[in-house]
């Protein structure tokens, strides 16, 4: 037996030497951008095809990242909307080391000044205020800019007596702005309460991933909470829970389906049904 194992090891080593020091790559070289590999089923799909399919994998239905503006275009009537306060920037209240460099990098990558987009336009002819969090900008974490823009959006909707839809996706409070970020949770919720008291509709639309201070403020307070399939939605991140409890988390923990099961999300809506579902809901409340 020992001999057999030794021989096998020898052959394996020979094979490794033959391949060179680099381990054999599992990945097939794909020219940049033509194909997209689904992170779930690992299937290769033509990138143009994925885009047409609203960034949902046609093979397994995985809802991948969609940019904030692309989401707004597919949502509003004729893809037309007006964006507000897009030039707002943070003053870096804690004077946090290297934060400015990080912001600059995120800006270069996304063309945005922060991860929150506020838009207004018509959806199924109904004037609606929409907030989208685009997590390609520093995980769309909520600092003073996100908090202020979301609060302004809510106040604007209240003033104009319009329904409000917030597409959440965020790593939570922005660490680099410390306590100022934490306070945005209180600020947004206070504004939301006034919108609610005015008898106006708020639809919270949770997308992957929504965690931390966003989950613990406006994201689960909708009159209607909608989630995209398979989105991670939770307060404490799975790794934090795992390391605190030192136990493995159950499968599907903190996914959209889990939240429906436990009574915190009303419905899961696939991206291609998003606009028509929202139109129906907006009309039911108009």
């Amino acid at each position, binding site marked *: 037996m020992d001999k057999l194992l030794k021989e096998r090891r020898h052959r394996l080593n020979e094979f490794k030497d033959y391949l060179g020091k680099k381990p054999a790559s599992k990945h097939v070289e794909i020219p940049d951008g033509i194909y997209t590999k689904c992170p779930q089923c690992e299937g290769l799909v033509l990138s143009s095809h994925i885009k047409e399919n609203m960034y949902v994998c046609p093979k397994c239905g995985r809802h991948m990242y969609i940019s904030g503006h692309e989401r707004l275009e597919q949502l509003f009537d004729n893809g037309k909307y007006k964006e507000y306060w897009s030039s707002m920037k943070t003053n870096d209240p804690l004077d946090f080391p290297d934060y400015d460099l990080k912001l600059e990098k995120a800006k270069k990558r996304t063309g945005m000044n922060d991860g929150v987009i506020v838009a207004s336009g018509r959806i199924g002819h109904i004037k609606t205020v929409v907030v989208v969090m685009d997590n390609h900008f520093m995980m769309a974490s909520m600092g003073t800019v996100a908090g202020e823009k979301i609060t302004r959006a809510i106040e604007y909707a209240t003033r104009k007596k319009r329904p409000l839809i917030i597409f959440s996706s965020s790593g939570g409070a922005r660490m680099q702005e410390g306590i100022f970020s934490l306070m945005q949770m209180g600020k947004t*919720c206070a504004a939301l309460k006034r919108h609610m008291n005015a008898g106006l509709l708020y639809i919270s639309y949770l997308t992957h991933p929504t965690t931390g201070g966003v989950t613990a403020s406006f994201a689960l307070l909708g009159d209607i909470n909608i989630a995209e399939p398979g989105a991670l939605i939770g307060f404490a991140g799975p790794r934090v829970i795992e390391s605190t409890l030192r136990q493995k988390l159950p499968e599907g923990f903190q996914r959209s389906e889990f939240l429906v099961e436990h009574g915190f999300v009303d419905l899961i809506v696939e991206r291609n049904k998003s606009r028509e579902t929202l139109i129906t809901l907006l009309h039911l409340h108009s």
Partner: protein
Amino acid sequence: MSLKEKEKKIKELEEKLQRIKNDPDLIDAVEGKRIEDTITRYKEHTYSSLSAYDRVYLARKSERPHIKEYIANLFDDFIEMHGDRFFKDDQAIVGGIGYFNHLPVTVIGHQKGRNLDDNMKCQFGMASPDGYRKAMRLIKQAEKFNRPIITFVDTPGAYPGIEAEENGIGEAIGQSLMLLSDVTVPVIVFVVGEGGSGGALAISIGDHIAMLENAVYSVLSPEGFASILWKDTKGERVGEACEVMKMTAKDLYEAHIIDEIIPEALGGVHKDPALTYRKIRQVITEQLDALVRVSKKDLLNRRYAKFRKIGDYRG
């Protein structure tokens, strides 16, 4: 030298002095006084140059008064209420009603527990959704009977666990923020120990926010912060995190996040709790006196404006 080590040194010196003081052969009164003064000066120096990390250490000290001591020393005829009416009674949050100078008030606060048994029962002050739902029930009750609300904040954060997530810890905190922002009775908040994250904020939306001198209040625990931002899991950069987060009472007062700093005795509130109780009593008296005169509408508008203005942006 860390504050912990300095405190150990002070204690040793004080004990030594006590021993030699009791023996007139070893030391005369003048010499004794001289040594005592030296120790006092060292103490004063130690506690007047505390780093943010030192304050975190003090804020977490288990000798500090806990919610039940604040209640016993500030309120009369206190009756504790239990349960969220949905699921269970979370010991991490204590709430009830009592008198403050003959005025009925509702008191809510985190409970950490002092020995391991109690710590386990109340999850070291980390509340679950049921805790925040109990708090919300008592807030609504206070509003119904027009009782001012006084909260005591002392938590490392909300409980990070499977059950807490299943029962919607995020939703519970969000609801609590919304409720407190709109409750028509005065709300006075005291951050007495650790003000950790959303778990602290959930009962900290109020009209007047005071913080004990050595208390801390932050977006996340410094350990969590260092781990998230710098991938520091060994705790090597926790001290640095404490500094950059600007989490001390002084920092937060200067940033206009809190309204007032309550002094503590030299070495921390536990050295002379009566001093701090007196000051808290004074703050509650002053604030209630002013806040009960404000119309409900103005009260809500002012509270809204108080949080509305927090931000630092341009454009």
